[in-house]
């Protein structure tokens, strides 16, 4: 029995060590490498907690005074290219070249909606990550009527509920949409406890990242290259035109008149974001669209009117706003809205011109 007690004591000590030390033992790159790991977060959105923790760790370790955070969807994330062709990579490279001390963090994630962006801003505050300098990417599709999809908070609805229940309650009906609510009382209760564990117990918080990192290292040793998404320019992808004819894509370029009040949840969340970012450096940019590929859609008068409505909305808002539409060479698109690595590099230059005017070093 005495031996058993000793083993248990050691076991508890190791467990405590793991709980307190894992965040410092894990290579930051495993969790955050110029942007978050989409694969780890998409399967379990609570995994985003580890990203906040690691970004905060970098800020503290590097004693960063100034830094910029990019928030947005797949355009902000810089899909479909690798991390080495993303906004944060280019902007950090530029900052380094010019001997600037600030860093750029990218917390964008494909499919993020403005509701997710709002939630990330609240979470950043919770983790002590400053939102003094923020770049937000939005897309035309975000203003289109939701029917009921896509949900206005795509990934982080549980986090929003926890951190700002009032806002969550306001949008809950739309979030649940056609989705089936878990009716089983037992599963519901266990589900909540499980989420809590994944948010707070270190080994669970980092489990998916360690798994992915180990696989990546193993594959490197084996000389097996990871499958990358297709980063070719759009005109080399013959399937795109037919793909975009599908209703789910056509919805994204709808010419139906935008409703520009808070009944449109895009506006509801943008208003909240702008209020949250009061007196802070905030740049909102509207992603460009591939005019060549989407000619039939973008040439519609309704589409152009909607574009004007978006511009008008931002006209009096206390944020900087850039509408990149028609400002990006169509050769730089990899599809209808995403860019090639070269495209993201050029866009980074344009973002740099704005952020360099901010009071950051």
């Amino acid at each position: 029995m005495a031996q058993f007690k000793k083993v248990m004591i050691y076991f508890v000590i190791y467990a405590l060590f793991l709980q307190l030390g894992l965040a410092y033992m894990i290579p930051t790159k495993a969790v955050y490498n110029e942007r978050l790991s989409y694969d780890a977060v998409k399967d379990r959105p609570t995994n985003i907690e580890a990203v906040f923790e690691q970004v905060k760790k970098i800020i503290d370790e590097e004693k960063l005074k100034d830094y910029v955070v990019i928030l947005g969807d797949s355009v902000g994330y810089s899909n479909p290219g690798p991390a080495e062709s993303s906004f944060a990579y280019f902007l950090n490279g530029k900052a380094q070249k010019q001997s600037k001390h600030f860093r750029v963090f990218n917390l964008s994630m494909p499919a993020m909606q403005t509701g997710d962006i709002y939630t990330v801003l609240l979470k950043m505050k919770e983790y002590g990550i400053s939102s003094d300098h923020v770049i937000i990417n939005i897309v035309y599709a975000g203003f289109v009527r939701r029917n009921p999809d896509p949900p206005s908070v795509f990934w982080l609805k549980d986090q929003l509920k926890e951190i700002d229940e009032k806002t969550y309650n306001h949008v809950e009906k739309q979030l649940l949409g056609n989705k089936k609510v878990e009716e089983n009382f037992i599963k519901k209760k266990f589900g909540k406890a499980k989420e809590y564990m994944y948010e707070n117990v270190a080994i669970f918080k980092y489990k998916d990242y360690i798994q992915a990192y180990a696989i990546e290292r193993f594959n490197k040793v084996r000389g097996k290259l990871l499958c990358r998404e297709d980063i070719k320019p759009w005109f080399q992808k013959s399937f795109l035109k037919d793909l975009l004819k599908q209703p789910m894509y056509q919805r994204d370029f709808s010419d139906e008149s935008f409703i520009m009040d808070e009944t449109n949840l895009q506006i509801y969340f943008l208003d909240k974001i702008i209020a949250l970012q009061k007196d802070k450096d905030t740049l909102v940019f509207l992603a460009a669209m591939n005019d060549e590929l989407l000619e039939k859609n973008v040439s519609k008068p309704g589409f152009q009117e909607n574009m004007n409505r978006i511009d008008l909305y931002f006209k009096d808002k206390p944020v900087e706003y850039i509408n990149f539409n028609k400002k990006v060479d169509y050769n730089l698109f990899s599809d209808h809205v995403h860019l090639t690595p070269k495209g993201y590099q050029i866009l980074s230059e344009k973002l740099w011109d704005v952020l360099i005017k901010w009071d950051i070093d």
Partner: protein
Amino acid sequence: MLFHTFEFFVLLFVTFFSFYIFPKKRIYILALANIIFYGASGTRYLLLFLIVSLITYLCSLKLETCYWKIFYLIGILVVISNLLFFKYTGFVLNNLEKFMRIHFPWQDSLLSKILLPVGISFYTFQLIAYLVDVKRKEIKPCDSFINFWVFISFFGQLIAGPIMRGKEFLPQIENLQDNKLTLRNFKYGFYYIIMGLTKKIIFADFLASKADFYFNQVGNLNSLDAWFASYLFAFQIYFDFSAYSEIAVGVGYLFGLYLNINFKSPYISASPSEFWKRWHITLSSWIKDYIYIPLGGAKKGTLLQYMFLIIAMAISGLWHGAAWTFIMWGIYHGLLSAFHKIYRKWIKLERKNSFYKILSIFIFFNLTTIGWVFFRAKSIHEAVFMIKKMITLCDISFSHVYFVYFGFIALLYGIHILEYFIRNNEITLKLFWEKHVPTGIRAAAYMAILIILILLTKTEESSFIYFQF
């Protein structure tokens, strides 16, 4: 609720502590834990399970009266109808349509509404055994429904066995208040749970994706691929199913309850009869006691005995799944058993010869592997196609990669033998571990195992194969 999930461990943790903190309320604590465990799969099916259990319980109380035949019949009918309706309606209707060309217009809408309640096959067999045992006066009917409920629904073994009998398990349930938490039980409990989790998470889940890859393209397999796929599945199903049974045994130990070991290194069997004493032991003995012997067993002559064997095994196959592939798997094993009995009658060999023993194990392992093709294939057609390739070796395209593949199978077999060795030397190894390894290193080893298990658990939880039965 799956064993390798957060939900299960929370339930286990809470139940374990409540069980020892409130010794007078133990039966209620276990009854509630069982309700939560099963209720997580669906409250409607929990209700169904409770009703079927209650009817069986009430019928069993009347088996000592002069109307026992009626109540026995009612009990058996309710229990079997429940299983037949939920598990075999689709199978029967589809076959009526296929062979008799009878089409029921309501068939699709009915089948879309019928979902198989988890663990129905297991609790059905346990309920039948209980009723038969009471009727045979081998046990007294349980006089408390809550005791009966805990016996029939113990969350450790409810969904995939081991199938417990009344005479083994009911006295343990009735004497719960006497159970003390001993260090031995605690250690054994965790030993079995960790052993089961390791088998499931490290081996079974890993092999599943590989086996699926091959079985999803049966048409493209050559003879060696077919053998490799079958070996993979043989080990996948072993690790998967024995994992569940071992976790069940471990859970039992934590509550001072002793469940039967269901698997004892089955692939070292040298004959069909030995295999069924090592594979899913509680099911094999159930089939023997409640089907094979009541049919006549060995008492009605050799020919009938073989026939009863084949019938009993076919029923066992059908119990596993409502498909012809499962029935064929059962018949195949029935035939193996019958042929082996004939062989033993005709050919007398010195059994102690170790070469003969190794050869027998090798041959029987490969025969079992062929049988698994029926179990895993999507259709009889696919199974026959694959087995034909395996037996005739008609399509061999050999390359050095098969050395790696079959080396991997040899490694799996080595692990299987290692498990056999560990099991047979449990106490010696335990003593060595405790005597020669410092406590700090032991604790580090336990922590390492825990971390590996957590890290290797898939994001999407994979079910146990036997949960579908």
